[in-house]
């Protein structure tokens, strides 16, 4: 038994047929081929699967695809303007905020949610905001530095042109 679900993913309407037990993360990865969103656990602990649902960060392993019916989903693939990078992506790169990269999409999505509501967070606020995202590689030091830098870039309102990322 399957159900028809309509999502708007990274700005594009997508119709998918899913089993009721199908998780949003499975639909994104397997039905829509958006494999930038990762699965790191089976207990909603790691945050590797974080995406935006109607603009707020959610763990997509904890949302059923049918619950997202009619809603707007943004994944890591939808963060960057064409050919460029979002300020948070650029800052993760510049500050070495990633190593294996597996946690990175989820981290970036959580950071984006934080900076939306708190454009000038303290280090403590950053650390608390990404508490639901586990990184085993970086010790978080450079992730915090990256989010701090992204916040200041975003506050300054400067776009990050593609050429500056080379």
């Amino acid at each position, binding site marked *: 038994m399957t159900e028809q679900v309509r999502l708007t993913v990274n700005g594009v309407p997508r119709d998918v047929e899913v089993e009721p037990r199908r998780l949003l993360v499975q639909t994104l990865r397997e039905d829509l081929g958006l494999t930038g969103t990762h699965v790191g656990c089976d207990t909603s602990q790691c945050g590797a699967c974080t995406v935006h649902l109607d603009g707020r960060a959610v763990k997509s392993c904890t949302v059923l695809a049918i619950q997202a019916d009619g809603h707007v989903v943004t994944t890591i*693939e939808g963060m960057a303007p064409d050919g460029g990078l979002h300020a948070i992506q650029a800052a993760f790169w510049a500050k070495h905020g990633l190593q294996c990269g597996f946690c990175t999409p989820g981290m970036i999505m959580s950071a984006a949610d934080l900076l939306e509501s708190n454009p000038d967070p303290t280090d403590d606020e*950053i650390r608390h905001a990404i508490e639901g995202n586990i990184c*085993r590689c970086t010790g978080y030091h450079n992730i915090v530095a990256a989010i701090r830098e992204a916040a200041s870039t975003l506050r300054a309102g400067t776009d990050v042109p593609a050429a500056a990322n080379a």
Partner: protein
Amino acid sequence: MTTDVLGSPVKRVEDPRFITGKGRYLDDIQMTGMTYMAILRSPYANANIRSIDTSAAKAMPGVILVLTGADVPYNPLPMAWPAGGSSGVQNNINMPRALATDDVKWTGEGVAAVIAETPEQAADAVEVVHVDWEPLPAVVDTEGATQPGAPQLHENAPNNVVFVWTVGDKAGTDAAVDAAEVVVRQRIVNQRLIPNPMEVRGDIGLYNPGTDEYTVWMSSQTPHIQRLLLTAFVTGIPEHKVRCISPDVGGAFGTKIFCYADMALVMLASKLIGGRPVKWVETRRENYQSTTHGRDHVTYLEIAGKRDGEVTGLRVKTYANLGGRLSTIGPGVPTTLYARVLAGCYKIPNVYCEVTGVYTNTTFVDAYRGAGRPEATYVIERAMDLFAAEIGMDRAAVRRKNFIAPDAFPYDNPSGLGTAVNGEKIYIDSGNYEPALNKALMTVGYDDLDKAKAEARTRGKHLGLGLSTYIEVCGVAPSKWIGAVGEGWGAAMWESANLKVHLTGKVILTMGTQPQGQGHETTYSQIIASELGLAMDDIIVQHSDTLGTPFGYGSYGSRTSSVGSTAAIKAAGKVREKARRYAAHMLEASVDDIEVVGAEYRVKGSPEKKKTLQEIAFALDLGFSLPEGMEPYLDETAYHDTPNCTWPFGTHIAVVEVDEDTGKVDLVRYVAVDDVGNKINPMIVDGQLHGGIAQGVGQALWEEAIYGDDGQLLSGSMLDYALPRASWMPNLELDETVTPSPVNPIGVKGVGEAGTIASTAAVANAVIDALKPFGVRHLDMPFTAPKVWRAMQSQEVRS
């Protein structure tokens, strides 16, 4: 365009794909006709299998194939590193099978496998495989398993003993301990850890019925080794018929070095179902039960010395839990990788260590970041603190007094490979320990420690400071270590590189090493750019695929930057030399008259007569005009066997605050001064240290794999196993001293493990320092609030 990139913090070339969601990890690979495997795992820690009935599973929707041990004509998974190797130590070896046939030895051991059209169908079908179990009493306690009356796991291992391995001079050490003015004794536990790379393991097997060849994608640190082990030892398939590929690997920390049952199962299953691809990706719970664990030692340490602070002897007895059966290099970790650096950076004349490897009904234990060396550092650094406390001497002063002096290198460490039976000696080649200690003490404000403690008391906190002055042996390893001593992989440990300058001047470096987040594509590009005078953009680094890369031993043991880089530099040297000879031909000069400046090959004294590397490659790759005896193409391969390991060192200092009401421990400062030699990319080096430190801190404060007495893994999910979170960690204060390693041309040492090796002991010593007012001399990790609170109740505050 800049070619002067060696030693610069250039941004990583692999990052654009990762920050945009375009990384390609194992589970991201989709193929037409993909099938999915699920594995039935034992619910019992110790049980016999009377029978297995797969008929219901076979009838489930979407099921294509069900396998049990009887269907898998495989040899056991190889155990490649016995304790002491050929030096005569008896190893009572029991290896896992691809699927258990007669019995299981831990909860999570694989018993049956289902291949189905979807992952959900495979998971559903596994549920209805019926096993008739005969449960048996289990034993999980490391020391207890060796005691009389404990359940016996294996007939060939009385008292569950895998081996008893010793190193050092027993008589001399006994005499030193007997004669000493002061002897301090302590039992310490280095608890079991679950490594937890954020990407779990997985494989895809694909059989080609047309060619009778197999391709296996695997989330692995060692694709070449896996091809060797899976063919020569497990399946008997000829080695040249198998290709192994590691895609992007989402962290590994040792767990992805090893040979696992699932790798063989996906190969076999793909053949049995006519060549459809078979994908298996473990769940996190499965990862906790059936991918290797780390550490798990119980140690009795005795440190002997004089009241003036001189340490004269170290005698250590360790029980090392290796799980229910042995993983690929399980016995090597608590023996040679552990006890050979047990004396740390200290000149201790008498060292003796006995290690008993133990079977218990738990998941197999193998190398986890640092592998043996964090355990050794924990022993010696706790011992130094215990000794200092006993004689009433300052902890830093005791360390300083016993450091191996800077002019004592090469140093023949008494438990090191210098003492190996019939072995060729391997010395600690370099070091200068005091400057790192002094720098760290200065940074942390050691002289004001009492003031800081008093200030913390006004806030209801007990402040503690802990030192860890460590060395590590990395850059593994000279093949003579393995060949002559019989310790190490049942194979050598050199590394390989192939460098091609193609017709258009673009360069491809292919390596036998295998990254898992370390940024090899960047650091190797930096090296080749600087060796050949090229822009990094003109270089691509390839790895991870046994088709097209030279055989290599993979990445672990902080070996890539020392051993791998040297292979790459040698290949670049060969390319340069051939280019120089060809430039002489092109310029009609003698080879001796050609000088190389960056990418230009010039005639000495007439710099206008020159060819660029690109011009040389173009002509040489075409080969229209070749000097006598020269082959076309600029394509060189180099293999490098390192003459020695590398010996990083440093001082780490942790500052913690313990809440007086709750016992909660906060890590408030962390200062690390590391000497990892020269750096290829200091930004990447710092990142490795950050991550390593966090893992070591995790062990000290939060992480612990816990089994119930019945062998059930109680810390069986990420909900129950406390991994470091961002809000639990402080910013880290890093500094350096630089003592270049003499064993490779760029003087690097490797840094993947240093942070983890040093940090656990630093944090533990800090917590125990904080608890000094309560008369606490030692407490076992992890220092959770309830444990610390209880320790604080045991005695009233004295000061």
